[in-house]
């Protein structure tokens, strides 16, 4: 057993208490749980703020801005970057002032939204529609063939995916009454959805238990450390 310092024991013991505070919610809501909850939120935010300053604001803006102001020299590209960011940051903060000045914050928001939408819409179509559709359109030899690849070892899986996708979509098509063949297909879709939810539930149980196992391991290690 490696030697542990007093500092390590104190911090680990503190973590143990917070773990027990959180677990106390299983019995019922109580002030100890609330304390632990607020500490988590506070510490997380504080940590993130320091990280943003140290890793982003300082190297990417403050240092170049200081070089510009102190006359150390800065490339034209970086000078524009520093100034444009300064202007839009001030615009964003004008929200706090209110009145007509606050309207300028919309310019900054417009840039953020415009760039994000411009970049992400084509990528989302590519990732979530085109690539996913491609996963359903299977190849027969080298020729695209929109049915089951009979030569493939995974023919059954392919069939299952196509039937599951189509019947699932049928269930969410509400412009036609779910009757007859269409109703049957929609009902099959419900079965596929239920099996999907079941798999998700199973994985969720596994995930939550894993986390509980991790915490109990932590408590065991603490006991080993103390005694």
């Amino acid at each position: 057993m490696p030697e542990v310092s007093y500092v390590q024991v104190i911090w680990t013991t503190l973590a143990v208490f917070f773990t027990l505070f959180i677990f106390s919610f299983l019995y019922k809501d109580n002030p100890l749980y609330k304390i632990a909850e607020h500490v988590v939120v506070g510490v997380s935010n504080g940590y993130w703020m320091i990280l943003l300053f140290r890793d982003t604001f300082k190297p990417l803006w403050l240092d170049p801005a200081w070089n510009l102001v102190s006359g150390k020299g800065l490339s034209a590209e970086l000078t524009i970057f520093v100034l444009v960011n300064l202007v839009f940051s001030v615009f964003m903060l004008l929200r706090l002032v209110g009145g007509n000045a606050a309207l300028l914050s919309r310019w900054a928001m417009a840039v953020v939204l415009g760039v994000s939408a411009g970049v992400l819409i084509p990528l989302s179509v590519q990732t979530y529609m085109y690539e996913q559709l491609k996963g359903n359109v299977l190849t027969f030899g080298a020729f695209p063939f929109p049915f089951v690849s009979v030569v493939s070892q995974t023919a059954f899986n392919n069939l299952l995916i196509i039937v599951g996708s189509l019947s699932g979509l049928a269930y969410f098509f509400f412009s036609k009454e779910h009757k007859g063949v269409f109703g049957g297909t929609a009902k099959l879709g419900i079965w596929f959805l239920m099996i999907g939810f079941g798999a998700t539930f199973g994985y969720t149980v596994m995930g939550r238990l894993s986390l509980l196992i991790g915490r109990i391991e932590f408590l065991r290690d603490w006991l080993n450390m103390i005694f």
Partner: protein
Amino acid sequence: MKEFFQKLLKIDRRWIFLITGVAIVIPFFFFIGLPIKATREVRALYDAVEALKPGDVVFYAPEYDPATIPEVQPMAHAFLRQVFRKNVRVVATGLFQLGVALAEQDLTLMAKEMGKKYGEDYVFLGYKPYPEQVILNMGEDFRKSFPTDYYGNDVNALPMMRGLKNYSDTKMIVSMTAVSGADYWIRSAHGRYNIPLALGVTAVMATDYYTYYQSGQLFALMGGLKGAAEYEQMVGIKGKAAKATLRMDIQSFAHLAIIILVILGNLAYFATREKK
């Protein structure tokens, strides 16, 4: 019998919590060593790393926080052990704000264990906000978002970064993630730059990402503790270091308890159901 089932349905949920807790604590004292068989989606990552040559570079993106350590950290450790053992170099980021310190800790710990040197065998670029923009930027040049690394070193001064411009200079991207950042890697790294991508995700996320594995957008997928245990077995991690493998034994016992509870609940429901 019907009365028993009626009582069962009205049982205080805290008894369920207690039973689950006991079912998890008991197996801590008995290690059975249940067999773990590697699945195709987990083996794909192991095989891809085994096929790499010494000196090749992989891009590694750990994005998990302390809450998900039990599931994701064993994957991260097993993966890093394998790549370092193969003398494959690693360039890493930590784009999840609550996981940056963990990412750095994992890299440092594994590098020390495997005798690897910072700047030559691995580089940690650190954190920048707006992960999707950062991922897109790195596809052009790592230096655009990271002129300096996590420790404040000029990236150009690090020997490993010479000749390493963007993803196309790496063989694959592997992200061990517990957050929606996984979507960003699929959309903006694989989708935009067509780089082979593998994910290690928490069990809760796993079913969502099987669709991307099925469509070929991911070449490998590790889900939860089970995926981590499979990977540990393939890498050959034994003893106390095989944390996921040890936890899977406990997990299986707890699952048995949950299955019994689900069966009992269903029996009680059908036994007490009123006839229409």
